[in-house]
């Protein structure tokens, strides 16, 4: 029986290859059409609406200390926003932690404005304090658009975060056995009609990391990287990754470092 089965499968395989060639055309044209669709919506990214709101929030006094965020140090010195997002995540001496953009902004809101980070962590995406965070993120990342992704692992804590992130990327769990790698570790794959970047390589990592945060047309929302990762884990059927938790920063570090040399295209415009 075993042999018969193998034989059957082999014939099946040959036949599959034959049918594949005929389906290649249909597949290709659908992919081309999707590319055309993306081109058509590229002009007029609604992220711009969030950027403007974020710039106002950056400069507006808020919180118990009634202070602005203008003195926030995103890694390039107090108040330097231009180019800062292209070099995050990074190690910050004052917190003795590796931080991504959003966890760093929480530090600034706490230190400068006297706001409680727990309120930000607990808020649902797109609502309350998170809504402000999202607009501020849109503002900050826009000021790195066109820059090269340049993330360092020179500090031991940065290197450690990278290693933890790499391990987390391949960590399988949940009722579907998924890890990030289930969908993002091979070239040329897609889910439904959406191309899946291979994040284990520079080119794919740049396509992923470089285009998020983004405006998502399917939800009509601007999504930060934290929300993007949160929804990846939701779809992986994992439990809920806590906002700004180490696993989210570690994964960001792994993606960003792998993407080094790519271009920041944020805010992107995604399905």
């Amino acid at each position, binding site marked *: 029986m075993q042999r018969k089965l193998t034989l059957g499968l082999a014939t099946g395989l040959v036949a599959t290859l034959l049918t594949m060639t005929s389906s290649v055309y249909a597949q290709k044209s*659908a992919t081309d*059409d*999707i590319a*055309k*669709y*993306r081109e*058509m*919506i590229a002009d007029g990214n609604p992220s711009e609406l969030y950027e403007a709101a974020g710039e106002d929030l950056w400069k507006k006094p808020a919180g118990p200390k009634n202070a602005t965020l203008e003195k926030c140090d995103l890694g390039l010195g107090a108040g330097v926003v231009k180019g800062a997002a292209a070099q995050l995540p990074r190690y910050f001496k004052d917190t003795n932690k590796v931080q991504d953009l959003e966890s760093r902004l929480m530090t600034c809101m706490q230190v400068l404005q006297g706001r409680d980070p727990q309120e930000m962590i607990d808020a649902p995406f797109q609502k309350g304090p998170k809504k402000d965070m999202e607009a501020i993120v849109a503002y900050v990342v826009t000021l790195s658009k066109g820059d090269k992704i340049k993330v360092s692992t020179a500090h031991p804590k940065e290197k450690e975060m990278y290693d933890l992130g790499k391990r987390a990327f391949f960590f399988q769990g949940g009722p579907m056995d998924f890890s990030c790698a289930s969908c993002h570790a091979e070239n040329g794959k897609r*889910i*439904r*009609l*959406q191309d899946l970047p291979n994040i284990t390589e520079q080119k794919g990592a740049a396509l992923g990391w470089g285009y998020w945060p983004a405006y998502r*047309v*399917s*939800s*009509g929302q601007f999504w930060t990287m934290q929300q993007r990762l949160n929804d990846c884990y*939701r*779809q992986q059927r994992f439990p809920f990754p806590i906002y700004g938790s180490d696993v989210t920063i570690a994964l960001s570090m792994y993606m960003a470092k792998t993407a080094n040399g790519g271009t920041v295209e944020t805010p992107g415009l995604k*399905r």
Partner: protein
Amino acid sequence: MNQQRRSLLKYSAVFGLMASTGLISVAQAQEWNKAAFEGKSLDDVFKILGAGSPDKSSAVTLNAPDIAENGAVVPVGITTTLKAEQMAILVEKNPSALAAQFFIPAGTDSFVTTRIKMGQTSNVYALVKADGKWNMTVKEVKVTLGGCGG
């Protein structure tokens, strides 16, 4: 119904106020065509717009993708070599066919682009009124399921 009527009243009141304070003139307000936007089928809308059964015309071009990656945002544009006064975009299988309509004064190009929602794969119609006569073109846009589907 009551709710609808109330909002309609409120609506007209706002327009009235704006017109009376000179914010916008009555002529340009082009009061929102409630009947047309509430028309269900293509024919309902054609009738309300006074388009009857519009002629297919090669002078009208509908710029829309063959496949939309997501039905929530479908880019659609109309261009025409005719001198358009009014243009409209209709989606046959949407709950109400009329998506948007535009009024083009002299000095403005016969061109518009916007983005619409489509519940499913459907024919999309571009209508152009020029010299008092309606012309149209039609194109099918496929709406696909995407992503992980959760």
